């Protein structure tokens, strides 16, 4: 496994960054990518001065191991549920953050379908009024009769496992391809298959030629670390979003905690052991890459937004409204923002990529 990131916010100054061996020019390039809307941002930053030495070790688990195999979303989800059962070795509660949105509802559906009775007894669904309003049907049919539920605010990572819907969005993103179709008279297939279109994508977002080269090389280099071959525009865009978004999603939970907890080694260990995001599994990543162009991920019809996940949920709750009409909504983890500014800036360790 490869270490993923150093992490900063737009408030970092040059002196602070150099003390952490981070290239300021590189950071600025990333900042531009985020500020221009090129990269999907989790939106939560951790003040640089509060980052302790152990921080980068949290993300050792983030890089998927690429394999050339076929897998459906349903298989990936069921496999992930079985993996997670093995992960939950300590006999402590399992908190499931439920926003009512598609990703977290999919997680809860997978738990309901695959976990055995003993594990289900340990589940506590963490929700808010907004969660309920988002999906009252699922609450009334699945959650209320089967699980304990609590309102958000009382949980800790020390004494509980935590699971949530992140980084679900990173599985599905390929929106920039659609953006490009508005400015170039080409079909979606052409856009997706021709990696030179990346230049149009990035330049449309305000990058200079040199910055485009730098960023594309950066992505290639990073993907090689895990033997992942990026061949299409969609591959690149997926990878860019995945490698950026997955790591921030883990940190998003950290940011709700008091500074003293973040600096506490015991807490960090508990966090690392108790907070494994659901959608980082290898099967999911393989499914995501394979589904870029075949239409299983998104075929351009808004009804089909995250349809494999909605179908997975429908198989459990039989709610046609949710399957056929549910689209994007605010996730509960987005509501965890404190007063820290966004967007995040994430930068890979060892910026020598710049000089390859």
């Amino acid at each position, binding site marked *: 496994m490869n270490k993923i990131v150093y992490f900063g916010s737009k408030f970092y100054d040059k002196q602070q960054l150099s003390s952490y061996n981070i290239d300021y020019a590189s950071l600025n390039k990333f900042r531009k990518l985020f500020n221009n809307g090129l990269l999907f941002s989790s939106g939560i930053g951790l003040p640089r001065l509060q980052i302790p030495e152990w921080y980068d070790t949290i993300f050792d688990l983030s890089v998927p191991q690429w394999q050339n195999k076929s897998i459906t979303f349903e298989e990936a989800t069921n496999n992930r549920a079985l993996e997670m059962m093995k992960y939950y070795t300590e006999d402590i509660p399992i908190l499931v953050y439920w926003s009512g949105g598609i990703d977290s509802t999919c997680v809860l559906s997978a738990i309901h379908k695959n976990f055995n009775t003993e594990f289900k007894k340990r589940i506590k669904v963490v929700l808010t*009024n907004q969660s309920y309003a988002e999906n009252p049907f699922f609450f009334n049919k699945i959650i209320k009769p089967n699980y304990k539920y609590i309102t958000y605010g009382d949980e800790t990572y020390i004494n509980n496992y935590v699971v949530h819907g992140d980084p679900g969005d990173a599985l599905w993103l390929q929106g920039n391809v659609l953006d490009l179709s508005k400015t170039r008279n080409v079909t979606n297939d052409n856009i997706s298959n021709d990696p030179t279109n990346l230049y149009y994508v990035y330049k449309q977002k305000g990058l200079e030629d040199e910055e485009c080269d730098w960023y594309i090389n950066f992505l290639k280099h990073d993907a090689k670390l895990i033997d992942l071959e990026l061949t299409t525009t969609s591959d690149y865009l997926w990878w860019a979003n995945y490698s950026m978004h997955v790591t921030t999603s883990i940190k998003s939970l950290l940011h709700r905690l008091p500074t003293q907890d973040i600096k506490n080694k015991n807490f960090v260990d508990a966090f690392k052991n108790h907070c494994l995001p659901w959608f980082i599994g290898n099967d999911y990543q393989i499914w995501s890459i394979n589904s870029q162009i075949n239409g299983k991920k998104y075929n351009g*019809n808004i*009804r089909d937004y995250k349809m494999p996940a909605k179908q997975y949920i429908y198989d459990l709750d039989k*709610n046609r409204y949710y399957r056929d*009409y549910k689209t994007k909504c605010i996730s509960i983890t987005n509501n965890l923002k404190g007063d820290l500014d966004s967007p995040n800036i994430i930068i890979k360790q060892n910026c020598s990529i710049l000089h390859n």
Partner: protein
Amino acid sequence: MNDNIEKIFHLDKSHWGACVEENETQMQYGIYETVTRTFAFTFFNPRRLTFLSNLFSSRFDLRLINLTTASNFNSTLIDNSCCENWCLNKKDISSVVSAERESNEIISASELFQRDSNYGNNELLINNRQYFNYVINLLVLFDDLIGTRFEFVTTMRSDWDTGGTSNYNKQEYNFHYQHITVPIEFKDYKNNTLEYYYYLRKAVYDVVYTEFDFEIAKAKIEKLLSTIL
């Protein structure tokens, strides 16, 4: 039973577009469903349509459109017998999608087009037309009941109305009230008090928000309303 209640309990006899309220403004609005790109319901009162869209917000993404501003609009162009066949142009769709869902912003239609069937099957939406009509009549009913039975409220009515509509959106929804099929809070209220009417109204709206099956919802609502009618 007065005329309003008669219509609510006998919707099968009502015709599309009929309503207990009179249209004094000559304006027509529609609630536009963003996934199948068509109109779910039309009415002349935007406030009621806003409330209606909030009550169905966990099922559909419905946006309020001023139909009267469309260049090809006339009074016979669109009603609830055919609104599922109409669509906005791309510019207006873009305005709809970019508007915040919770803002309840009214988008002015510039032109109405025949809907493209490639936008997908909207059968489920059409099947809810009767439910929409029923709820519109409920909204009118409660205003009428409260306005006529509690005359002193009349001067405060706009405040109550605001509270009754804008507060009832998905953001501020209080789920603690949702699990009560028959409102046990009512036990402390005489059923001819103003407080009772507001609790009753909320209980009825809760049923609409949470019960997706129209027939079941109607039965629950009629049971609730039987305490005052």
